[in-house]
C-alpha cells in the first residue's frame, strides 16, 4: 500500500515537472562569438557587456513573444580559426535562432561560407564593405561600412579642415587594406592623390620607420587605420616624440576607451570617425548613461553595436512573430528608422543597417562630438 502511494506521488511529481517544463517558455537563444581570450580580449569584454545589457533590458520589459532572450557566448580567441570553431559550436545547437558575429572583418570573412550553409541571420560588426556584397542573404551589418566612413573622412579632411597632402597608415589585414583602397578612391573623387601610403602588421613594437617617412613626406594630414589599441598608442607616442604636427584623423580604434587610457595626451587634438558617440542622438546618450551606471566604464563602439544588434534583433523577432529564419530575415530587412546607440537603423537589400558616421575630436582626453555625416542609403 505504502509502495503504491509512493509510486503515485512520484509519478504525480514527474507529471508536474514535465508540464512545468513545457509551460515555462524556453528562452530565445542568440549565439554570440566574441574574443574572450587573445589579442582583442579587452574589446571582447565590452562587446559582451553591450549585448548582455540589451538582453537584460529586453527581458526586464517582458521579453519577446513572451520569452526571454538568452545569450550563448563562445570564445573566438581573436583568431580566424577560433571564430570558425566558435560558430560551428554555436550552430550545432538548433535552439540558437540568430548569431552575433565578430567585429573584425577578417573573422567575418572566415565564417562567411558557414553562415551561408547554416541559413540563419548573422549580425556582425566588421566594416569591410565587401562583406555585404557576397550575395549572402544572412549577413546583417550593425555598423556603418568603411565605404561610408572613408567618404566622410575625405570630405571632412578636405572641406572642413582644408588639408590636401594626405599620408595614409594602415594595418595590412582585411580591415586596413580595404580602407586604404576606399579612402584613396574617395580622395581621388576630390582630385587628390595621397603623398604616402604605408602599411604595417598588427602588434608592431616600434613605428620609427613609419613616423620618419610621414615626417619626410611633408603631409599635412594623416589618416590611420589601426586595429590594436596598443599599436595606436605606440604610434601616437612616437608621432609626438618625432614632432609630427600634421592633423590626424583615425579609424574608431583611435577613440576606443583603452586606447585613450594608454595614449593619453599623445592623442589630444586628433579626429576620428566614430560610429558611436554618446552625444550623437538621445538613444546614444541613454545607452551611455546606463552603461556607465552598470559597468562603471565609458561605453565605446564595441559595446554599442552589440547592444544595438540584440535590441534590433528583438524588434525583428517581435515583428516577425516567430524565430523562423526566413521570417526573421524578412523582418530584419524591413527594419526602418529604428533608433539605436550607433544611429538610426534602416536595412538595405545588402544587409547594411547604418549609413552615417560621426566626426569626433579628442579634446584633452574627452571625445567631443563634431558633426554627423549621413550618406545616401
Amino acid at each position, binding site marked *: 500500500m505504502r509502495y503504491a502511494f509512493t509510486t503515485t506521488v512520484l509519478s504525480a511529481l514527474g507529471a508536474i515537472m514535465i508540464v512545468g517544463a513545457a509551460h515555462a517558455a524556453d528562452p530565445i537563444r542568440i549565439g554570440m562569438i566574441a574574443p574572450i581570450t587573445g589579442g582583442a580580449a579587452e574589446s571582447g569584454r565590452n562587446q559582451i557587456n553591450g549585448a548582455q545589457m540589451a538582453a537584460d533590458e529586453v527581458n526586464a520589459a517582458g521579453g519577446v513573444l513572451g520569452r526571454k532572450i538568452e545569450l550563448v557566448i563562445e570564445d573566438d580567441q581573436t583568431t580566424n580559426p577560433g571564430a570558425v570553431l566558435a560558430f560551428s559550436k554555436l550552430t550545432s545547437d538548433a535552439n540558437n535562432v540568430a548569431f552575433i558575429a565578430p567585429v573584425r572583418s577578417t573573422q567575418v570573412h572566415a565564417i562567411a561560407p558557414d553562415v551561408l550553409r547554416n541559413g540563419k541571420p548573422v549580425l556582425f560588426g566588421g566594416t569591410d564593405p565587401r562583406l555585404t556584397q557576397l550575395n549572402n542573404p544572412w549577413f546583417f551589418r550593425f555598423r556603418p561600412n568603411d565605404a561610408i566612413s572613408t567618404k566622410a573622412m575625405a570630405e571632412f579632411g578636405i572641406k572642413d579642415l582644408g588639408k590636401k597632402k594626405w599620408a595614409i597608415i594602415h594595418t595590412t589585414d582585411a580591415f586596413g587594406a580595404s580602407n586604404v583602397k576606399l579612402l584613396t578612391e574617395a580622395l581621388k573623387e576630390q582630385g587628390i592623390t595621397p603623398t604616402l601610403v604605408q602599411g604595417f602588421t598588427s602588434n608592431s613594437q616600434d613605428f620609427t620607420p613609419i613616423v620618419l617617412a610621414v615626417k619626410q613626406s611633408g603631409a599635412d594630414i594623416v589618416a590611420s587605420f589601426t586595429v590594436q589599441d596598443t599599436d595606436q598608442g605606440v604610434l601616437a607616442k612616437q608621432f609626438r616624440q618625432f614632432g609630427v604636427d600634421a592633423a590626424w584623423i583615425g579609424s574608431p580604434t583611435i577613440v576606443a576607451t583603452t586606447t585613450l587610457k*594608454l595614449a593619453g595626451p599623445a592623442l589630444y587634438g586628433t579626429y576620428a570617425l566614430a560610429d558611436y558617440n554618446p552625444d550623437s542622438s538621445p538613444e546614444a546618450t541613454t545607452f551611455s548613461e546606463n552603461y556607465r551606471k552598470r559597468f562603471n566604464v565609458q561605453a565605446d563602439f564595441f559595446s554599442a553595436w552589440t547592444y544595438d544588434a540584440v535590441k534590433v534583433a528583438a524588434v525583428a523577432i517581435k515583428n516577425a512573430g516567430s524565430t523562423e529564419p526566413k521570417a526573421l530575415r524578412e523582418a530584419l530587412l524591413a527594419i526602418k528608422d529604428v533608433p539605436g546607440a550607433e544611429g538610426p537603423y534602416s536595412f538595405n537589400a545588402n544587409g547594411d543597417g547604418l549609413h552615417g558616421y560621426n566626426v569626433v575630436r579628442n579634446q584633452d582626453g574627452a571625445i567631443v562630438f563634431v558633426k554627423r555625416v549621413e550618406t545616401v542609403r
Partner: protein
Amino acid sequence: MDILLQLTFAGIGMGSIYALVALGLVLIYRATSVVNFAQGDFAMFAAFLMVLAHLHLGLPYWASFLVALAGMVAFGLIFNYGVYYPLRNRSYLPVLISTLGASIVIQNSVLAAYGPHPANLPGALSFQGFQVGSVFLDGQYLVIIAATAALVLLQHLFFEKTIVGKQLQATSQDKEMASLLGVPVKIMIAITFIYSAVLGGVAGVLVGPIIYVSIGMGGAIALKAFAATIIGGFGDIKGAIIGGVVLGIIETFGAAFISVPYKDAFAFIVLFAFLMVRPQGIFGEKIAEKA
C-alpha cells in the same frame, strides 16, 4: 644622416630588449639543453607585477621594481620545480613541450587575474627623452640600452669571478663531471631558472613603458630573441647579445628602406640565411664538437 641615426637608435633600443630576453634563453639552454618557450612570458609576468605594485598598490617606482624582481625569484623557483624538475631525466622534447604548456598557463592565469585590458606603465625616467639635433633619444630606450650593458657586465663578473658563477658554468658544460666534483647540480639549475626569470623580468619591466603591458607582449619579443640566439650562436652569451642588437638594427633598417609590413620577415630571413650558411651562428661552436 639624421634619419640613419634615428633608425640606428631605435634598432639598438629594440635589439637590446631582444638581447635581454635572449640572454635568459641561452642560460637555460646551456644548463638544461632546452629552449624555454615561456621566456617571453617571464617578461610579461614581471611587467604585470610591476603594474600591480606601482599602479594599483601605489608603491614607489623603485620599490615596485624590487617587488617585481622578488616575485620573479619566486616565479623562477616555481618554474624550475613545476615545469623542468619533474621531467629532468627525460629527453629535451618533453621539457620543451612542458615550457610551451607553461606559457599558455601563465598567459591565461594573468588574463584571469588581471583581466584583458593592457596597462600603461610609466617609464623609469620622469622625462620623455632628449632632442639631440634632429634626433630624438627616447629616455626609456636609453634606460634599456644602459641596463642591458650593465647586466651584461655584471653577468660577466658573476660568471668569471665568483665560485657560484664558476659552478654554474661547470654545470652547463658537463652535469655529470660537475656533480662528481661536488657541484650541487640541482641547486645550480634552480639558480639558473631564477636568474633567467629575473633577466626576463627586467626585460619586461623595461619594455613595458614602450609597448604597453599586455598579455601578448612577450610572444613577439621571445620569437625575435630566439632568432637572435641562433644568429649569435645558440648557447653563447655574447652571441645572444650581439645577435639581439644586430636583429633590432636589421629589422628597423629593413622596415625603413625596403618594406614596413615585412619588418618581422627580415628577422627571419636573416635567421634562415644563418641556418643555411653558418648554422652555428656568429660565435657558436660547431655542433660536431659537441657530439
